[in-house]
């Protein structure tokens, strides 16, 4: 774990006077799996949208690989190496799994040359090898989520933002997804994960950032975070062993 791939300083976002994210600092170490958790409405999605450039910042700055990217439009951030796997997957239904991934590999970043190898790599990592020649429309929810991650990974990002990849999955599928994200990290892609499933988060993440009502309330290893009284308080009424599905 050499450097810091993504950092935020004083990140703030307000919508018409309502502050959704207030003065949040973070540092994502390279080659980590970093978690972002918080109760519903804490601002997790807003923070992701600020990083991909979907919303402009109100104040603060975001640096990617040392460069200030706060002013860049979404597609430039994408080209710089930030990819996002969406919670609601949007596959190309009539195309095969392999073709879906290939489109990610071919058009994502201009300098990717060996698209074919990238595709096979992404398929293997997501465990989609056997389904590669099936069309996307017949896939199960678990396979669709994997496809979403594989397609994003095929753009060869250095940072992959995964938005609740385990939501709605059964325990077996969740375990497979956790495994898949580990492999993504092992290929040198940093993963930043928003997840509701506490079991998944604590088992996979190296470090976790906790926000509540737009404020950072804790950051640390899974053990530190889980035992932090502020976190427990924030989650009161919402048990830690969250079974969202």
């Amino acid at each position: 774990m050499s450097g810091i791939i993504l950092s935020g300083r004083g990140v703030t976002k307000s919508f018409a006077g309502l502050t959704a994210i207030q003065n949040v600092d973070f540092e994502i170490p390279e080659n980590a799996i970093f978690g972002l958790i918080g109760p519903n409405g804490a601002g997790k999605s807003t923070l992701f949208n600020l990083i991909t450039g979907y919303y402009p910042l109100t104040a603060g700055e975001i640096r990617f690989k040392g460069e200030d990217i706060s002013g860049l439009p979404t597609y430039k951030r994408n080209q710089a190496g930030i990819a996002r796997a969406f919670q609601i997957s949007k596959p190309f239904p009539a195309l095969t799994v392999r073709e879906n991934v290939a489109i990610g590999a071919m058009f994502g970043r201009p300098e990717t040359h060996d698209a074919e190898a990238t595709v096979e790599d992404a398929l293997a990592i997501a465990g989609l090898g056997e389904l590669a020649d099936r069309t996307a429309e017949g896939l199960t929810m678990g396979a669709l989520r994997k496809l979403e991650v594989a397609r994003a990974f095929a753009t060869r990002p250095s940072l992959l933002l995964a938005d609740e990849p385990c939501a709605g999955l059964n325990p077996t599928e969740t375990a497979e997804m956790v495994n898949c994200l580990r492999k993504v990290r092992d290929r040198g892609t940093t993963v930043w994960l928003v997840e509701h499933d506490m079991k998944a988060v604590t088992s996979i993440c190296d470090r976790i950032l906790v926000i509540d009502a737009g404020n950072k309330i804790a950051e640390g290893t899974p053990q530190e975070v889980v035992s932090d009284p502020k976190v427990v308080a924030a989650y009161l009424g919402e048990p830690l062993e969250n079974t969202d599905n």
Partner: protein
Amino acid sequence: MKQGAALAAAAAVVIAALVLPMWIGPFYTRVLQLFFFSAALAVAWNILGGFSGYWSFGHTVFIGMGAFAAAHFVQQAGPFGSGPWAILVPVLFAGVLCGVFAAIIAYPILRLRGIYFAIAMLGVSQVVGELVNNVSWFQGGVGVFLPPPALDGMAPEDFFYYVFGGLLLLCVIIAMMVRKSRFGHALLSIREDEETAMMLGVATERYKIAAFVLSAMLVGVLGAVYAYSVGYFTTYTVFRLDFSLNMIVFCLIGGIGTLFGPIIGTAIMLFITQVLLSRFLDIHLLITGAMVVVIILLMPGGVIGALRAWRQSRATGKDREAEART
């Protein structure tokens, strides 16, 4: 291994096609010539309609434009060269002209989607057809004559059999190359979901236009050769709604958006109409319409789609069995 077998099969088909006219006589040579022409048109239409999902209801505009372009080129510039090769330059000119025309109308017309694009293309073909018919310089109303190439004793039906066969092969190779390439993947992503494609970095506008121009050029070339094969033609010989519709129907029946679907669909439909029911000309439309309805209701993916669905369901069945055993 699999590729080698496919290549060998393709070579066998080509060789068989080369020697076939010696055995089957002029009637079936003409039927096959029509098959090559129609299949090549369907393959060319499919590059735009099947791969990118932009169905054109007016592709006959490029047949007509190609035919008249070749005829006027010969009238103005005289024949280029002699012997069978004399058709080469006018035919190429026709293809280029169609490509240029397509490039000019591409930007506005490809902003339309779905049925609106389809009908707008129908409109374009009607407008161009009527202009060719009524502006006297084009001579569409009275008709134009394209001098047949000197064939040195070869029967014209044999000659056009080979030319159309070669063009079909060319169209198939081009379609294959497109399908495998980055370009082809871009078109498929446009067909499936144009917005998501853009988000993944596909320059949708550029690829759509390229597919449109490529498809138009191929159809233009085919139209010009068709004009040579009929010799004398008027507007209504080449600007024909049924040409436009057949391209769609043949692709639908074989499997739209697939590589060989258009060829299979053309073979099925021509076999039914030209061989089985060749004497019942007055019910061809009924049969074609019925085929379209039946295919859409029973196998919406066409013949190839049905085969694939069958294979996929068999594979899923096997998975289930395997799962049940463990």
